[in-house]
């Protein structure tokens, strides 16, 4: 028992120090001192090479307060947590050793933070979606010059909205928002309504993406199968499709006599009109809209029902490879095909489209989804090592994404062989403009097919986690719940693939819808309210943000009319 009373420091104090245990008797009986030995460390093990730092008086007393206040509330309660303006800067934070020496903190978990370049790449990778396939079509719909201008303008606008989304948790006082995402911010400002509506709109973007994926997967699977079949049976179907002649064939899948016609493609691709029974039965069983969407169910529905999606997260590199391959493919095609540009400013000709068209809202709708990352930007930026560079890194990421889209869009549009074909032929999925016999494009389609098969369950997992989490509080309430949700999602995809496989329209509608809430309305409102609460809302700022909201509404409304 003598050992329990050894002092922390210095020479042994025997005898008289411990003779008056009488004063501590009442405590003896109640606490078991053996169980609560104080630290006793040999001094020689503690003193290191680091110079001894003197803790400032303010830091010491703040430490004392934080210790004490933390005893007064529950561990998860933030009521008496020190607010940010009270905590010293990281350079002034020390770690106490029990013997009174203090060491400076050498950067909080530097190991889990990424340098800027990794963060920029992560944002680029996440934003690069299948909308890249629709950019040439979007530029065609709005006119070449107007399309480029709109791409730049929309990119800047969405960058600004992303910036205010990123800033929004930090403007909230008294609350620890370190693990908040944008829906939590909406819940703080708008209550349950904010939480639910931001969830619903987030779902719109996710489910929209999943439907697009289904349509594209059907498309790519069809073309892949067609290529393999034609290759195996040595069938040459190049004459049956309307397109250019020569080695770098570009086709116009829905041959139109009228260049100004902008019907949406619900024409069933009948393919060749050859009469052999082999073909027709193959066509019968291998149809882009009739049968393939159903075959995919067999493959993907079971994958959707997996409890955890971490297996699929390993394959994100496929997306990067696909995009890089697409860029090289586009470059190659442009080199081979050459540029075919003619500038007709407001009138459309047989082969070319005007530079400025009234259909430009279709491009803005597509771009709203193409530049959409607002529902997860806070999480992505959290792991940035130098947080003060967040704005710069975000801008660089948006610049890179914009350049990638611009590059692909402009090159495909410019290289589209206009003397035989009309620019109007550019498809919402520009790979459709290449025949299924094209080897490079076949590789692209296969890459994208694999990538989508691995991303589709990830998206399904995100939808499931958010919906089940909000509705039932449990990510996997039961197999039946999850199966029902998956059937609904898959069903939507199959129906769209069968009856309305125009990915340009799906992308622009879902983009404009989810953009309305998560890009324009909520961020602008949140920003204005937080400024107002700080008393810093000026008239120009209020007008500008209201204008943003109106733009978002106009974007959605225009999708229905244009």
């Amino acid at each position: 028992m003598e050992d329990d009373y050894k002092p922390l420091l210095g020479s042994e104090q025997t005898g008289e120090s411990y003779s008056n245990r009488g004063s501590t008797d009442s405590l003896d009986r109640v606490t078991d001192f053996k169980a609560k030995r104080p630290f006793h460390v040999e001094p020689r093990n503690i003193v290191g090479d680091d110079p001894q730092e003197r803790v400032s008086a303010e830091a010491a007393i703040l430490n004392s307060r934080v210790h004490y206040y933390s005893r007064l509330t529950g561990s998860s309660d933030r009521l008496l947590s020190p607010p940010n303006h009270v905590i010293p800067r990281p350079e002034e934070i020390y770690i106490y050793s029990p013997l009174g020496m203090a060491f400076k903190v050498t950067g909080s978990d530097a190991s889990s933070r990424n340098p800027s370049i990794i963060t920029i790449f992560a944002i680029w990778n996440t934003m690069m979606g299948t909308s890249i396939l629709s950019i040439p079509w979007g530029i065609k719909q709005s006119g070449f010059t107007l399309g480029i201008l709109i791409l730049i303008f929309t990119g800047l606008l969405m960058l600004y909205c992303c910036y205010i989304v990123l800033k929004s948790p930090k403007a909230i006082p008294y609350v620890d928002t370190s693990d908040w995402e944008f829906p939590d911010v909406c819940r703080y400002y708008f209550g349950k309504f904010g939480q639910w509506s931001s969830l619903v709109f987030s779902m719109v973007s996710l489910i929209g993406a999943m439907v697009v994926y289904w349509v594209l997967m059907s498309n790519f699977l069809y073309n892949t199968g067609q290529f393999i079949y034609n290759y195996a049976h040595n069938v040459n179907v190049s004459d049956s499709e309307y397109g250019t002649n020569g080695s770098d064939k570009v086709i116009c899948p829905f041959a139109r006599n009228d260049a100004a016609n902008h019907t949406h493609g619900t024409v069933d691709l009948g393919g060749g009109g050859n009469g052999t029974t082999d073909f027709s039965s193959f066509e019968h069983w291998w149809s882009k809209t009739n049968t393939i969407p159903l075959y995919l169910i067999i493959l993907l529905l079971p994958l959707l029902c997996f409890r955890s999606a971490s297996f699929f997260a390993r394959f994100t590199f496929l997306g990067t490879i696909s995009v890089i391959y697409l860029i090289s493919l586009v470059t190659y095609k442009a080199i081979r095909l050459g540029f075919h540009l003619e500038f007709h400013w407001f009138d459309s000709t047989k082969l070319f489209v005007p530079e400025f068209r009234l259909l430009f809202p279709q491009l803005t709708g597509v771009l709203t989804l193409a530049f959409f990352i607002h529902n997860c930007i806070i999480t992505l930026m959290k792991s940035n090592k130098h947080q003060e560079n967040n704005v710069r890194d975000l801008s660089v990421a948006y610049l890179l994404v914009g350049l990638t889209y611009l590059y692909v869009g402009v090159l495909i549009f410019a290289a589209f062989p206009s003397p035989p074909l009309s620019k109007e032929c550019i498809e919402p999925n520009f790979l459709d403009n290449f025949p299924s016999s094209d080897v490079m494009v076949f590789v692209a389609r296969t890459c994208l097919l694999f990538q989508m098969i691995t991303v589709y369950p990830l998206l399904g997992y995100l939808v499931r986690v958010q919906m089940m989490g909000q509705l039932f509080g449990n990510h996997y309430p039961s197999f039946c719940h999850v199966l029902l949700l998956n059937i609904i999602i898959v069903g939507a995809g199959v129906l769209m693939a069968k009856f309305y496989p125009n990915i340009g329209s799906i992308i622009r509608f879902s983009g404009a819808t989810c953009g309305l809430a998560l890009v324009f309305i909520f961020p602008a409102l949140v920003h204005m309210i937080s400024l107002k609460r700080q008393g810093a809302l000026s008239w120009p700022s209020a007008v500008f943000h209201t204008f943003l909201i109106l733009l978002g509404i106009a974007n959605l409304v225009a999708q229905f009319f244009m």
Partner: protein
Amino acid sequence: QSSTANNLEGVLLMGKSGSGKTSMRSIIFANYIARDTRRLGATIDVEHSHVRFLGNLVLNLWDCGGQDTFMENYFTSQRDNIFRNVEVLIYVFDVESRELEKDMHYYQSCLEAILQNSPDAKVFCLVHKMDLVQEDQRDLIFKEREEDLKRLSRPLACTCFRTSIWDETLYKAWSSIVYQLIPNVQQLETNLRNFAQIIEADEVLLFERATFLVISHYQCKEQRDAHRFEKISNIIKQFKLSCSKLAASFQSMEVRNSNFAAFIDVFTSNTYVMVIMSDPSIPSAATLINIRNARKHFEKLERVDGPKHSLHMRMR
């Protein structure tokens, strides 16, 4: 009601809902705040407050103003009960409040009730959450508020403090308040100095029992740490919280190393004493005997002043 029954007097802690009263009480009196007691509505129940200090003072918290009509009516109908037998009114203002007019209006109605029911009460105003104001503006803003409050409080005299739970101002403000509530505090201080000099202590502190706020202290030489009182208070309150988990109560403590010895012990019915001796050769027994003898003397001092305290001397 319960106040008058036991000859207890009330200390009212009032202020708008959300001005920080519950946090303040929790910090000063070392009460645990359970998460679900942080209610969305107003503080309604007060009679069952167990926070007692300085013998016969009961701390009562009330939310004043800014709630629904139910609370308004309840407050108005209970006014006489609330404001009767009040020794101290502590009114908390949130410095960030955007409704200054309303706050002043409620404050004035409280003052009216005080004038009617307990005209001898002492009034203190705390301008709270000052950490949210930029440092260079704090003095200015506090001076403005103080002038307004002093003007509004006439004919009552109010003492104003600026406070924040994140610096030493809260502790100092409450220490000042408690200092003014101790009967015959100057005599206590003189005797404390004599006591310290007799036993050759480096420093002697006198704490209020419930809150461990330093009422008075004597030091024979300059001490380096200006925040030591608050630190000791925090440490002991944490220790008390731990003790209460074991259904034990804190009575005394001795801390010693080769350079000093510190003794914390019960002193009078309202106070604790802390004696710091920097001469480690003096045996503990000697100091403890000295403290025990001094205790008797100080208790006599307390008993002499004010019959209203005498009933509650033996409560502990």
